[in-house]
């Protein structure tokens, strides 16, 4: 297995990474071609040019992750503990919106939140909102979009961890003089932490690399690092800069994952895969 396993990682993980690494150290342009010149300066340029978008992505992803926790914890809790016989039906309904394609979902929201769309249009016409008010192109819209789109990645592991809590342990806490708040604080929440950890991992990583939300719901001031990579790559043909940015993003995420897994002792990840 070392061989096929190694081959797998080599082809699908190491090759892309090494290739990116190589491209990121090249110089040249689209007309004359690119050559590997070990031009580490690309990284310096990438950071100097785009550290704003990088930090913005970090901020957006962090806030969006926090929002998904806050929104999906009560939902997951309710379904796990009160769902009764209809648990899976509720869960299915909760996830139903996400069976619809990512882009369509986001487009629909853009329609709805547009400056003269179904929500803001009437409000402005009736002078309940100033004409200058807008939702789209704000960081709120982007963060909300990310949070909305990645909600299932948080809700599912949370649900699984809450669902797994032995009901008799909850009853034992009630029996031992814990009121509802204490039952939650002392027993349910601590036992759901593996789910929170797994959910954070599954939400934060794709949120950091996302560019669909920023490009559809955002504006020029909400550009994320994913948009920059796409722009440099597909529009500007600055392959080395795009590769350097990708490489930095990937390195940061992988480092984060490893540190995170280390802190958890890999236990909670193992429980959820």
């Amino acid at each position, binding site marked *: 297995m070392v061989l096929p396993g190694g081959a797998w990682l080599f082809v699908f993980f190491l090759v892309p990474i090494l290739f990116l690494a190589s491209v990121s150290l090249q110089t040249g342009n689209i007309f004359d071609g690119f050559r590997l010149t070990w031009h580490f300066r690309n990284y310096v340029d990438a950071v100097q040019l785009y550290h704003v978008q990088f930090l913005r992505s970090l901020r957006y992803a962090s806030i969006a992750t926090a929002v998904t926790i806050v929104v999906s914890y009560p939902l997951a809790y309710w379904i796990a503990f009160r769902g009764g016989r209809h648990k899976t039906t509720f869960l299915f309904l909760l996830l139903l919106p996400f069976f619809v394609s990512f882009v369509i979902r986001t487009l629909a929201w853009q329609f709805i939140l547009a400056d003269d769309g179904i929500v803001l249009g009437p409000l402005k016409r009736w002078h309940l909102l100033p004409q200058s008010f807008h939702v789209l192109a704000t960081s709120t819209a982007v963060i909300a979009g990310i949070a909305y789109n990645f909600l299932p990645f948080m809700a599912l592991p949370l649900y699984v961890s809450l669902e797994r809590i*032995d009901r*008799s*342990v909850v*009853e*034992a*806490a*009630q*029996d*031992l*003089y*814990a*009121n509802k708040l*204490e039952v939650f604080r*002392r*027993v349910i929440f*601590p*036992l759901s932490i593996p789910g929170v950890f797994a959910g954070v991992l599954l939400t934060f990583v794709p949120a950091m690399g996302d560019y669909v939300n920023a490009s559809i719901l955002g504006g020029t001031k909400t550009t994320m690092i994913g948009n920059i990579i796409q722009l440099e790559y597909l529009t500007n043909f600055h392959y080395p800069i795009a590769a350097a940015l990708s490489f930095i993003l990937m390195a940061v995420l992988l480092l984060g994952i490893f540190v995170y897994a280390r802190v958890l002792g890999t236990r909670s990840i193992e429980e959820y895969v």
Partner: protein
Amino acid sequence: MADIDVRMDQVSKQFAEVTAVDELTLEIDRGEFFSLLGPSGCGKTTTLRMIGGFEEPSRGRIYLGGKDVTTMAPYRRNVNTVFQSYALFPHLTVFDNVAFGLRRKKVQKTEVGRRVGDALRLVDLPGFERRKPSQLSGGQQQRVALARALVNEPQVLLLDEPLGALDLKLRKQMQLELKRIQNEVGITFLYVTHDQDEAMTMSNRIAVMRHGRIEQIGAPEDVYEAPATEFVAGFLGASNLLDGEVKDSDGSRATIRLRTGDAITVPAERLDGPERKVKVGVRPEKIKLEQDSEPLAGGWNAIEGTLRMATYVGVSHQFTIDGPGDRPLTVYAQNLGAETIPAPGQRVRLVWRPEHTFVVRPSEPLADWEEET
């Protein structure tokens, strides 16, 4: 009259279509070791959960120490439960598990330490404070669950088949231990089990339940030696029941004629109704096996049969006999090491004293699901 710790007054519990507990009335004295015994689905666990506050009765009232607690939340009741699955908090150490209840009651820190230490000593687990439940064996987890409940000095301790997950040897050992602990702390124990040996070994009184009702209530000896119904007779051990008809009855003795013609003498007070068709029974250890050629001692009941099987089980020999009308009968004989064992196929006579004969009301046969734990 002793103080009454638990009183249930015509309590019923309905789950959708099913009546789990049906008009149950029950009084448990202070300091008693009281067992609810019955097959699974008989309502014993539901009864316990209503006293613990985890289920609310559909009808009726529940009193703890005279106070009506029918609708009180579990965390306000001065009772604690030892759960069948132990339900230890997996993220907390043994110390924190045991201290959980005291901390919720805002007991002082030094006091918590002292009382947790005492409780762990009581269950013979000192030195285990810093382990996690997953590092303990089943028996040790059971002890922690016990300590966690007892440390709060509840008015009543509820135990829901706490030994069900342990193996036989450990279970026997824990039975004695539980009895010792109850003697030591003096708290009322309400014990739920489907294991008749367990109930008989530990309890002051037993209530045998079926279909949400109590079939009989009494000291282990009374319930075992003079079961009131066919179900109780069968649930507490092999019962050797025979169909018969009451023939005549003077002041102290009654005669029952079996279908096969044999006459069985029973104490007259065991006949508790005017029915003439009855079932009579005798426990297998009360029967002596004799060769049918021996002279019959006067004053004993006797029937004859053919030995089908003799089984050696170490402490005793168990005999299965085809009795009158080919009804299988069971006889136990202590393995004293000196007896002669009759051979299968041999004719034997079963004799026992009239005072060991009991008369029961017939019950419906056991349903399939009642066999399950």
